[in-house]
């Protein structure tokens, strides 16, 4: 196999690694954002429900 032909396979392999890692980071970032938003909303709700907490509405 010539270097040019092999280079295509090498490039494909490294592109796959990069793509998988980027995809993983995007998914994780989305998960963290959703969790942080949920946590904020839930904390507000808990605070609102506590006696002496923020009033409803």
């Amino acid at each position, binding site marked *: *196999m010539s*270097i040019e*032909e*092999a*280079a295509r*396979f*090498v490039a*494909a*392999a*490294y592109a*796959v*690694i990069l793509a*998988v*890692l980027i995809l*993983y980071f995007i998914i*994780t970032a989305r*998960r*963290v954002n959703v*969790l*942080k938003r*949920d*946590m904020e909303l*839930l*904390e507000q*709700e*808990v605070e609102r*429900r506590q006696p002496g907490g923020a009033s409803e509405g």
Partner: protein
Amino acid sequence: MKKLISAPSLFMGAGVFLVVGLLLGFWWAPVDASSMGFSQKIFYYHAPIAETALVAFGISFVAAILYLRSQDLKWDRLGFVCVRLGLLFSVMVMITGMIWGKASWDTWWAWEPRLTTFLLVCFLYIAYWVLRSVVEEEQRRATYAAVFAIIAFIDVPITFFATRFLPEGLHPVVITTGDTGMEGSMFASFFISMIGMTLLLVALIRSELVVESLKDRVADLKHKIGG
């Protein structure tokens, strides 16, 4: 010291080692003289990713034992995180391995010892994930998962040593106690990439544990509101 092992520092360290390892692999290490030729350059990330996947499964095995001894859910969380990351690295190993196989053996897949046992490792840890999703109660789920993780780990050393015990397979032996069969520059590039991948795994474990603690906090708050 704490700053040195913080997630951003670990990610940065991993990035530096991985880039240096790759650059050395391409520009310092010579093109392989065997039939693999230039396609051997895939090796500089493929092998470290494979070793890192096995390390992640190894950590999940230790975490499973620690959980069964202590019943502390933090070990269950660590084990689950490591299995997830092990599977992430396994996906990369399988795909890059298939590409490399096509380039050097002219086949995408061969039912030879290393590949077959590694595929079995993947299936076992996917089963571990499925098992976790079907058990509701937390402590019971953690116990079942820990027992399964210990059983699943049996295949990891088999995979690692498959090329040594069954040398008739296509896959070459990379890490040996004696002569590596590699030129010094090749081994150095591989070793630097290996450090980078290990640092990446540690950084990912740290960040995944942060995500898990966020999940716990959300579940706790939901429980508070529901109760």
